[in-house]
């Protein structure tokens, strides 16, 4: 690439990162260029590290960075990143994958992922269902892409009418290769290969975990490869917009997958540490600056009436009580679960944290959440099965829920209590029971409502969000980033 082309590529790369929420300024782009020059373009992995070192500001940005990097600095154009002696059928591919995974050869696994996409991943005019024999058109399509890579965007972007492939599908390739089918064999093979002191059930468990991880790695490689090729076909700027997964703290609670929730749970502990220091710092600052006149004068007697050392007024560290009232029905449950874990981790910031959950009636879950700190995986399910949240069905009923809370636990509210209501305010047609909410708001010091729905969809359908919002302040809280901002803003004052 010429110097000009390199600069251009770096700039579009920086633009793509910006679109994914990584703040890359001009300064960083210049740094990245200097770093790229120092390291050179010969080794792709080193180039990747060099760019990430000069552009990134946190580990959470890394997956996004990697996704975008693979699009803009692909290892190869066309058929595959690395070539292997081609297996032709899913069974052969699986066999080779097995060998590669057992020997822990990551490059080989990646190459096989590429082959898998090559044979079975193409879709569109030619590669309808890529059974073994039809692998050839897929390969040709890829090579066509290589020839036209200069203006791949122009050629492929407009081309639903193009006679060749219209894209590469990881899903299609994976459902053909079915790497999950390998799991049992892989586990046994790993057990065989790693011959160490462990035996019996625990060796089994260990091998099982490794097999699962290996298959997951292969699946990831297949996805990345499909993204890369589709990018070539359609123009990378367009693919970059939707094909790279967002950062964990920008994933919406209501649409998160199980894996994303696992990532979120992992983020809960460090996040709570961060929030705790932020809250503590603010409390420290709050004690500065106000002079206690009486004590200053008294102390000044020691220095002949000259106030040499002023005494600051000491504020009582305000540690409010926190009450969480969580909707645990359906899609809101994930949000409530995360928030419960987060506040539990933050519990030393409060004098008392009590948690309540409801579906159609409310029950206290403080103990369940406390126990859940050690095993956060299935907290929501455990709460639903162990607490009395509903009489029938799993659809939320705010009428009954607010009423049972106000009737049964009215005494937990007091002048030092902050209440966080977590829910989408979708009443399923039942009356919203504003009276109960008013009663709660009247007893507590603050009531805040955190709504995991986009503000534009409040009040649509059966949502009573706006009517609730008139009674208590309501905030949109769709992502971890919004949640952490709200927690610092709303909590201990």
């Amino acid at each position, binding site marked *: 690439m010429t110097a000009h082309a390199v600069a251009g590529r770096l700039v579009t790369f920086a633009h793509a990162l910006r679109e994914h929420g990584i703040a890359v300024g001009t300064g960083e782009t210049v740094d990245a260029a200097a770093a790229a020059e120092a390291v050179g373009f010969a080794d792709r992995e080193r180039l990747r590290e060099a760019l990430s*070192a000069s552009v990134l500001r*946190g*580990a959470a940005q890394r997956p996004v960075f990697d996704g975008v990097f693979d699009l803009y600095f692909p290892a190869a154009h066309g058929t595959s990143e690395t070539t292997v002696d081609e297996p032709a059928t899913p069974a052969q591919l699986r066999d080779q994958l097995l060998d590669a995974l057992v020997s822990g050869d990551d490059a080989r696994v990646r190459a096989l992922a590429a082959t898998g996409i090559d044979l079975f991943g193409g879709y569109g005019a030619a590669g309808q269902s890529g059974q073994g024999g039809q692998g050839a058109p897929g390969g040709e399509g890829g090579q066509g892409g290589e020839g036209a890579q200069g203006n791949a965007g122009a050629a492929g972007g407009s081309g639903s009418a193009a006679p060749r492939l219209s894209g590469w599908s990881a899903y299609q390739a994976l459902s053909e290769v079915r790497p999950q089918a390998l799991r049992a064999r892989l586990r046994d093979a790993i057990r065989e290969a790693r011959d160490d002191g462990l035996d019996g059930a625990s060796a089994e468990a260990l091998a099982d975990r490794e097999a699962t991880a290996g298959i997951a790695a292969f699946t990831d490689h297949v996805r990345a490869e499909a993204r890369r090729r589709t990018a070539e076909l359609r123009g990378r700027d367009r693919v970059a917009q939707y094909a790279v997964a967002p950062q964990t703290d920008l994933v919406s609670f209501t649409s998160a997958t199980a894996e994303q929730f696992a990532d979120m749970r*992992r983020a809960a502990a460090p996040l709570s540490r961060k929030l705790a220091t932020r809250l503590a710092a603010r409390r420290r600052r709050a004690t500065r600056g106000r002079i206690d006149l009486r004590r200053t004068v008294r102390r000044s007697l020691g220095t002949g009436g000259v106030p040499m050392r002023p005494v600051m007024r000491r504020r009582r560290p305000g540690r409010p009580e926190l009450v969480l009232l969580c909707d645990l029905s359906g899609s809101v449950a994930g949000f409530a679960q995360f928030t419960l874990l987060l506040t539990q981790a933050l519990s030393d910031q409060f004098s008392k944290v009590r948690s309540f959950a409801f579906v159609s009636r409310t029950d206290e879950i403080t103990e369940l959440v406390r126990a859940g700190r050690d095993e956060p995986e299935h907290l929501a399910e455990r709460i639903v099965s162990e607490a009395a949240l509903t009489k029938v069905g799993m659809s939320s009923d705010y009428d009954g829920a607010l009423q049972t809370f106000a009737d049964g636990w009215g005494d937990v509210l007091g002048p030092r209590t902050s209440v966080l209501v977590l829910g989408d305010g979708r009443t399923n047609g039942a009356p919203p029971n504003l009276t109960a909410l008013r009663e709660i708001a009247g007893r507590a010091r603050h009531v805040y409502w955190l709504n995991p729905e986009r503000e534009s969809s409040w009040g649509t359908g059966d949502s009573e969000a706006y009517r609730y919002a008139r009674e208590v302040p309501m905030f949109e809280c769709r992502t971890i980033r919004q949640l952490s901002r709200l927690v610092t803003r709303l909590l201990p004052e």
Partner: protein
Amino acid sequence: MTEPSTSQATPQPSGQESVFASVDEVVERLAGAGYLASNAVATTVFLADRLGKPLLVEGPAGVGKTELARAMAAATDSELIRLQCYEGIDESRALYEWNHASQLLRITAAKDENWDATREHVFSEEFLLSRPLLTAIRNEHPTVLLIDEIDKADVEVEGLLLEVLGDFQVTVPELGTITATRRPLVVLTSNATRELSEALKRRCLFLHLDFPPAELERDIVTLRVPELDRELAASLVRVVGALRELELRKSPSIAESVDWARTLLALGAETLDEEVVRATLGVILKYETDQRKALSELRLDRVLSPTDGAATVAAGTASPGHVSPGSTVS
């Protein structure tokens, strides 16, 4: 940044020679210092040296952040100057301080000297207590400056660092501005307990150190505990790797793998069987709930698993010293 073209002619604004010629050399020399660097580490260290920028290393506890700085010092034959940050650290601990007590003595000793002369003398090098940052800047020999756990320090300290790390100079009002004669290699480490300011991050190269891949970790363990059997090291790394996959409160770090290796060596364990794992799990997992979880995930919690039980019974009936099958199943 305003003249990117100069970076080609003189890699470092001060015109200082780079220590490393290539990334491979970084790998080699760090390995010589007992630090096995991954591709990411080597590339970033190379850039830090070449571009003259501080290196911000972030990552969980015990992945070798501080160790990296130590290895860099050893690899480049530099002196390691360390500033350990803590809550409430300030200028007088980080940068410099006047030795007030000595100054007072000096003033009382020189009663009949005129004031100008005294002042001249009192604010001289003799009474300046140099703290790590100033020491690193004034050092004429190659230096690696390690600013450890910067996230523990208050935000004000970051402001202080901006001047020091941006221009490598310190202004002492009574003495004037002291500029670095040799730019030190700067390493900042952080456990990410709080967000560092954007301004500081922008001046640094960012490196996230995470748990290394299995082969690298095995090499690290073997390097650190050379007496340990290689196979045992491999299975140890496997178990640690599996534990890191679990959702634990504190995942075992490299330091803990090495500790575990030492423990196994001290116990004279030949293989990593279930008995040994169960007995020594406390070395790598520091929370009771984590241990319980690990035991159940690795299926070590049962005294006898059904298959083992069957095997024991079978062995029991076959062996000459016959025990009644019922008694073996406890």
